[in-house]
C-alpha cells in the first residue's frame, strides 16, 4: 500500500491548500468593488443584471423573445420609432414620410450621412433588403405584419418607396416595430440562407447606438458604443449585461453594488428598495394587461352571463393590492392603455350582487366547478388564482387550481384542453391592430387568444379598422370593437401592469418605454 502513511492527510492537505488559496484571493481583491469591469481605466461601463437570456437568432425579424428584442432595439434602428410613451411614431432612419392621395404609395426620405457601426454607409438598398426579408424571408417570424405591402423600392440612395396592396392604417406603427430593423443588404440576405450560422449574427452591423462583437450563451452580453450613431456618440463606453435568473439574487446584487441596473424587480420589493440609500426602484407604465383566459367553447363558460358574472365577482382592487402591491390599475377596456384605447369604458367594477344576479339567470345557476391551470414558478399568477378561488366561491363557482409547467399550460390552451388560465399581454407595437387581430379575431388560429370566442361581425369590424385612413373614424371603430369585446367578456379582465426596474443613484436617464423596451442611448453613469 503505497499511500499507507499519507492517506487522509494528503486529502486534508490538498483541501487546506485550496482554502488558503481562496483566502489569499479574497484579501488580494480587496473589499471595495468586487465585480470586474466596474471602473477599469475610467471607462464608463454600465452593468446590468437581467432575468433572462436571449434565445432567438439575433436578426430583427427572426426575434420572438423579449430578452433578444430588448437588445435589438439598442443595435438595429428602424425607419420610424415609437415615441417614449409608446403611443405615437417619430422619425427614425427616415425623417420624412408622405403618402400618395390614395394612400397606396408611401415615400420615405432617409436621414443624411447614415452609417453602420463599422463606418460603411447605409442606403435605401439596405432598407429594401431588410424589409424584404422581414416580410418574405423564409425565417421571418413576423410576415403577417407586412402582408399589406406589395413592394419596397429603393428609388434613389436616399429614398425608399413602399407600395401597398390596399390602404393599411397601421403601416407606420409596423415600420417602427423592432422586426423592421435595418441590416446591411448582404448580411440581411445571408441570415436567411438555410445553413447560416446564427452565432455570426451576434457580430452586429446596425445603425443603432451600440454594437456587439459577438456573444456566446452563458457569457455576459457586451454592447459597445457606436461612434457613428446618427444621434451622436452615447455617453456610456460599454453596457455589460449579465444573466441572473433569480429575482432575489438580482436585487441582492444591486444592493451589494455588484450591478448598476436590474430589471424585473418583484412588485413586493419596490417600496423597500426605495427606502434604501443609493438605490431607486420604479414601475414604468407599459402597454400590458393581466387577465384570465376562459374557454368560451366549453359549458358553462360558453354562456356570456356566466362570463360576465365571473368578471363582476372578481375583486380587482384586492388583486392589485395583494398581488401587484398597488403597482397596477384595474382594466376598464380589453386593450392596453396605448393608441385608440377608450378610457371611457366601464370595465366590470366589483359587484357581488350583480354577479349573483347574472349567475341566477345563467346556465351555471346551480353552481359549477372549473379548473384553473396556473404556470408553475409565476408567483403573480399563483396568487391571483388563490384570490379568485375565494372570490368566485361567493357566487357558487368552485375553482380547482392546478399548477402545471408553463410548457404544459401552453400546449393545453392551444389545444383547447383547459377551462381557465391566468395570462398577460404586452403590445409589441403602438397600434391596436396587433392585439385585436391576435386576441379578438375568432374563427382561425390563434382563436381569439385561445378563448375560442368567435363573433363574425366583430371579425369584420377588425378588418375594416385596418383599412380606415381617417384617424377620427378609426378611433370610433376601435371604441366600438373594445365595447363589443368587453360586453362579450371572453376573458376576466383584471389589471394594467407596469414594468419594474431598479438602479443605483449614479445611473441617470434609465427608462422603460411604453412598449417595455429600454434604450441605453441616453443613459449616463456619474462617478
Amino acid at each position, binding site marked *: 500500500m503505497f499511500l499507507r502513511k499519507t492517506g487522509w492527510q494528503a486529502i486534508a492537505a490538498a483541501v487546506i491548500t485550496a482554502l488558503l488559496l481562496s483566502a489569499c484571493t479574497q484579501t488580494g481583491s480587496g473589499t471595495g468593488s468586487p465585480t470586474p469591469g466596474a471602473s477599469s481605466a475610467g471607462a464608463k461601463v454600465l452593468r446590468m443584471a437581467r432575468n433572462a437570456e436571449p434565445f432567438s437568432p439575433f436578426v430583427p425579424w427572426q426575434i420572438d423573445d423579449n430578452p433578444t428584442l430588448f437588445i435589438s432595439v439598442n443595435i438595429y434602428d428602424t425607419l420610424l420609432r415609437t415615441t417614449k410613451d409608446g403611443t405615437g411614431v417619430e422619425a427614425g432612419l427616415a425623417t420624412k414620410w408622405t403618402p400618395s392621395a390614395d394612400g397606396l404609395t408611401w415615400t420615405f426620405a432617409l436621414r443624411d450621412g447614415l452609417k453602420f457601426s463599422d463606418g460603411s454607409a447605409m442606403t435605401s438598398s439596405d432598407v429594401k433588403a431588410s424589409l424584404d426579408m422581414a416580410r418574405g424571408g423564409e425565417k421571418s417570424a413576423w410576415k403577417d405584419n407586412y402582408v399589406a405591402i406589395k413592394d419596397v423600392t429603393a428609388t434613389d440612395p436616399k429614398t425608399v418607396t413602399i407600395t401597398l396592396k390596399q390602404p393599411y392604417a397601421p403601416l407606420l406603427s409596423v415600420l417602427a416595430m423592432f422586426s423592421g430593423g435595418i441590416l446591411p443588404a448582404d448580411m440581411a440576405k445571408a441570415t436567411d440562407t438555410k445553413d447560416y450560422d446564427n452565432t455570426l449574427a451576434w457580430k452586429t452591423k446596425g445603425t443603432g447606438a451600440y454594437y456587439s462583437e459577438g456573444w456566446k450563451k452563458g457569457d455576459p452580453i457586451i454592447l459597445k458604443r457606436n461612434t457613428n450613431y446618427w444621434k451622436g456618440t452615447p455617453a456610456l463606453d460599454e453596457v455589460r449585461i449579465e444573466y441572473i435568473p433569480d429575482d*432575489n439574487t438580482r436585487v441582492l446584487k444591486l444592493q451589494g453594488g455588484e450591478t448598476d441596473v436590474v430589471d424585473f424587480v418583484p412588485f413586493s420589493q419596490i417600496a423597500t428598495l426605495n427606502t434604501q440609500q443609493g438605490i431607486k426602484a420604479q414601475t414604468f407604465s407599459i402597454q400590458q394587461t393581466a387577465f384570465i383566459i376562459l374557454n368560451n367553447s366549453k359549458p358553462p363558460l360558453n354562456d356570456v352571463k356566466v362570463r360576465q358574472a365571473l368578471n363582476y365577482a372578481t375583486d380587482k382592487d384586492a388583486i392589485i393590492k395583494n398581488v401587484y402591491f398597488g403597482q397596477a390599475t384595474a382594466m376598464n377596456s380589453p386593450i392596453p392603455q396605448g393608441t385608440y384605447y377608450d378610457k371611457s369604458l366601464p370595465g366590470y367594477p366589483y359587484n357581488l350582487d350583480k354577479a349573483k344576479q347574472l349567475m341566477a339567470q345563467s346556465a351555471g345557476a346551480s353552481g359549477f366547478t372549473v379548473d384553473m391551470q396556473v404556470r408553475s414558478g409565476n408567483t403573480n399568477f399563483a396568487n391571483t388564482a388563490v384570490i379568485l378561488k375565494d372570490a368566485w366561491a361567493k357566487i357558487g363557482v368552485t375553482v380547482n387550481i392546478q399548477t402545471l409547467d408553463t410548457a404544459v399550460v401552453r400546449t393545453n390552451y392551444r389545444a383547447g384542453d383547459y377551462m381557465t388560465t391566468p395570462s398577460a399581454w404586452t403590445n409589441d407595437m403602438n397600434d391596436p391592430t396587433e392585439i385585436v387581430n391576435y386576441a379578438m379575431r375568432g374563427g382561425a388560429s390563434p382563436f381569439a387568444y385561445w378563448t375560442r370566442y368567435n363573433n363574425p361581425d366583430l371579425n369584420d369590424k377588425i378588418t375594416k379598422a385596418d383599412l380606415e385612413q381617417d384617424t377620427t373614424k378609426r378611433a370610433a371603430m376601435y371604441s366600438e370593437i373594445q365595447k363589443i369585446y368587453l360586453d362579450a367578456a371572453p376573458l376576466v379582465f383584471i389589471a394594467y401592469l407596469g414594468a419594474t426596474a431598479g438602479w443605483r443613484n449614479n445611473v441617470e436617464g434609465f427608462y422603460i418605454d411604453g412598449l417595455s423596451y429600454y434604450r441605453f442611448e441616453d443613459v449616463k453613469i456619474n462617478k
Partner: protein
Amino acid sequence: MGRAAYIRRRLILMAFVLFGVSIVIFSMVRILPGDPAFLILGDRATDQKAAELREQLGLNRPILEQYWNFVSGFAHGDMGQSLLYRQPVGDLVLTRVPVTLTLSAYAMGLAAVITLTFGILAAINKGRWPDQLIRVGFLFALTTPNFWFGILLILLFGLTLHWFPVAGFGETVPQHLWYLFLPALTLALQLSAVLIRNLRGQIILTMRSDYIRTAHAKGLSERLVLLRHVLRNALLSTVTIFGLQFGFLVGGAIVIETVFALPGTGQLLIQSITARDYPVVQAITVVSAVLVIVVNLAVDLSYSFLDPRVTYE
C-alpha cells in the same frame, strides 16, 4: 482479482448503467407534455410552421430512430444540436461542466474540513455543550432548504460583511474560487450535517475498542491515539457516505447555480427542461451520470488505501 481487473469489470458495468440512464432520460423527456416546436416558435406560430420545424429538427421521425441517433451520436462524441439554440450540444454543455465540477469539488473540500473539525470536536466532547451545539446547529443546516440557506449566506457575507460577492462567477481563476465560496459553503454545510453525525458516532465507537485501550496503555499521547488510531478507522464509513453524496451534490448544484447565478450545467438543465430542449437535457443527464459513476468508483478504490484489509473481488 487484482485492482486492474476490478476496474475493468466496473467499467463494463458502467456501460450498462449508462445504457439504462439513456433509455430512462430519453423516454422521460418525451413523456413530458409540451411541444418543443411551439416553445421555440412562440404562441404566434401557425400549426404549419410548427410542423415544418418538427420535420427540420427530426422530431417526427420514428422514436426508435431518434433513440438510435442519440445513442450512436453520443458514442461518437456527437451530442446533437440544441433545439432551442441551434448550436452543437457539446459546445453548450461541455463549457459548463467545469463550473459544476469545480463547485462540487470545492463543496466536498469544504465539507471534508468542516466534517473533520466538528466531527472530532463533537466526539471528544460527547454529551457536553459543544457536542449538543454542533448537533443541533447542523440539524438546522440539514433541514433548511439550500436555496433559502444560500440567500441567508448572501445576506450575511455578501451584503452585510462584504467578504464575498453576492452572485456571479468572476472572470479569472482566483476570482472563480472567490465567487464560488458561498455557493460551495451552502452545499458543504448541508453535506457536512450528514457526515458529522456519522463521524462522531464512529469515533465514539472506535474509542471503545480494545486496541485503543492498548494504545492508551502503551502510554501514547491522547492526540496521537486520536489521529493515528481512532480517526483512521472511524473514517472508513464516513468516506463511503462522502462518496455517495457526490450525486446529491450534482443535484443540489442545480438549485444553487440558479440562486448564485453560476453558468454551470444545473442552470442550463433548468432552462432546457423548461424549453423541452431534449438533446441538451439528455446530454447533461448522461454526462452527470458518468461523473457520478466515476466518482463512486474512485471512492470504492480509495478503501484499499484507507484500509489495507480491503481487497477487490
